């Protein structure tokens, strides 16, 4: 059983047409498995987080009670993207597992929404937000190594607290970029194969082989997103992460949580309690 479905093109060539749909279940199970393993790990094996001391109480005292984390625009983007992503996943995969409905229209409309929101996000993040805050930096790597050594029981210096986003968050964002951009880029071209309001239908933009690979990439990234979304939702509802989740709704997190997890030197929050500067980024 291959992970790709092949067909014979009119010209007698073997060409891929899409992924094998059992991968949907593989992705879902992988997500669930991660969830279970992680939950067990946290419950039974994880050690209490330890960080080097950072901010002076003086700095802490100057902080507002609610630390601004995500601007309204960023939050709106996140939730629009999340909604379109759910629509995309359900419209893509439910019909494949036997739930029959008119899915294509919803799928391409949601895809269009996602694409526009991502374009907005790229521009917004590049020019209006702290673009680099979501990308892993040297400190992340060093700290990760320290944490790993400590986990193995080896002696190592304490890691620093996180910047605005923990490394895991940044890596997740990276994975979403890869899968998201894959589905979007292939999806935009695939829209030329169905009737949309955008351009005349033309399935002959590429060769059968190129199209086939495009469908496979779309499918692989799509099922990858199943896993990623499961993982994401799982983290969003984990009790210790709830403040972060809440901040994606209300835009701020408590000073206590901020000071507990984040390094004010790495995530500088303006001291003035009255005019919190928008520093948020979305994930």
């Amino acid at each position: 059983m291959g992970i790709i479905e092949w067909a014979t093109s009119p010209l007698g060539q073997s060409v891929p047409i899409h992924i094998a749909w059992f991968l949907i279940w593989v992705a879902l199970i992988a997500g669930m498995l991660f969830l279970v393993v992680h939950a067990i790990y946290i419950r039974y094996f994880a050690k209490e987080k330890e960080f080097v001391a950072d901010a002076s109480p003086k700095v802490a005292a100057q902080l507002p009670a609610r630390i601004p984390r995500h601007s309204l625009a960023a939050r709106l983007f996140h939730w629009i993207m999340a909604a379109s992503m759910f629509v995309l996943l359900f419209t893509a995969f439910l019909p494949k597992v036997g739930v029959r409905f008119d899915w294509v229209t919803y799928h391409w409309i949601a895809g269009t929404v996602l694409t526009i929101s991502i374009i907005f996000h790229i521009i917004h993040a590049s020019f209006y937000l702290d673009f680099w805050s979501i990308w892993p930096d040297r400190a992340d790597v060093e700290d990760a190594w320290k944490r790993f050594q400590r986990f193995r029981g080896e002696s190592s210096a304490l890691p620093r607290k996180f910047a605005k986003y923990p490394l895991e968050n940044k890596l997740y964002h990276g994975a979403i970029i890869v899968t998201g951009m894959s589905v979007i880029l292939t999806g935009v071209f695939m829209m030329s194969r169905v009737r949309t309001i955008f351009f005349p239908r033309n399935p002959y933009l590429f060769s059968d082989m190129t199209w086939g690979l495009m469908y496979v990439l779309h499918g692989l990234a799509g099922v990858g997103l199943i896993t990623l979304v499961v993982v994401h939702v799982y983290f969003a509802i984990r009790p210790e992460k709830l403040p972060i989740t809440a901040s994606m709704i209300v835009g701020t997190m408590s000073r206590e949580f901020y000071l507990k997890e984040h390094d004010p030197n790495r995530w500088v929050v303006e001291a003035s309690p009255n005019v919190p500067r928008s520093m948020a980024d979305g994930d």
Partner: protein
Amino acid sequence: MAVIRDIMPAFQLFQPSSIADAQKLLEQHGEDAWVMAGGLDSFDWLKDRIRKPKALVDLSGVEELRGVRTTADGIEIGAMTTLTEVVHHPVVKEKYGLLAQAAELVASPQIRNQGTLGGNVSQDARCWYYRAGWPCYRAGGNICYADTPVGRNREHAILHAERCVAVNPSDSAPALIALDAKFVIRTPKGERVVDAEDYFLGPDIDITQMNILQPGYLLTAIRIPSTWAGARFYFEKVRDRNVWDFPLLNVASAMMLSGDTIQNIRIAVNGAAARPLRLKAVEDSVRGKQRNAATGEMAGKLAVQGAVPLQFNAYKIPLMRNLVKRSISGVQEAAWAS
């Protein structure tokens, strides 16, 4: 590996003699089974080696599936009743002439002798790209070859196309919809009876299937209630040749009149979409109106609202408009002296 479109592949042949046996076989073989009625669609698929089922269940020996029976409320036609039998059955002719007219226009006399009513309503699309074994949407692939800037789509859909633009080629289906027929299906979970129009699927719902039959399902009979018995019927099939041709479009209507007023009506067309279409909006718009040319014109225009032509099938729009009109207000026949 090379492709050859000739010589039936080997399969296990089962020839049950009862519905129960047939059902057992279908359940046993699940997705590996192929149900064959008259064989006119099946043999194409098999000889072209596009479909290679492991087990072929030939229903020709199931006597229970044959024949027309009168019931308390109309008639019940076994799914394996040949089209010729349907055409010549006195009760069908007398009370449900719409079906007799439609069945008589199917293909050719030889094909009607062999083809069955169940097979006629369950037949697959005849899109020449799909039938060539090309990996199109309907074949489980990711493209429609007919709806492209250069696709040859003269016989394809003008309505409800969703990626796939194939049409349903059945002549009897719209007549059965107009007669408000019910399709009786044996499923592994028991008998299911569905309205004729709900038997068919468009590509928006399932792009690889034209009807609701699942592995293990068996269409056993078609029931026609007496509701429309003896109503005013109209059937017309438009095709390129006078015989042995699929419809480019067909229309079926059943109408009840009180004087010249249309009391009730059912209209269906086929050849316009991947499933036979019941024109509910048209029915609603003409109910209570005078049966005259103006009503017909209005109905025709309404029927083609939202139709989207492809490069070579724009003619289907005026054709459908005219057919729907004629199905309501009739044809102005020529009155030549000679």
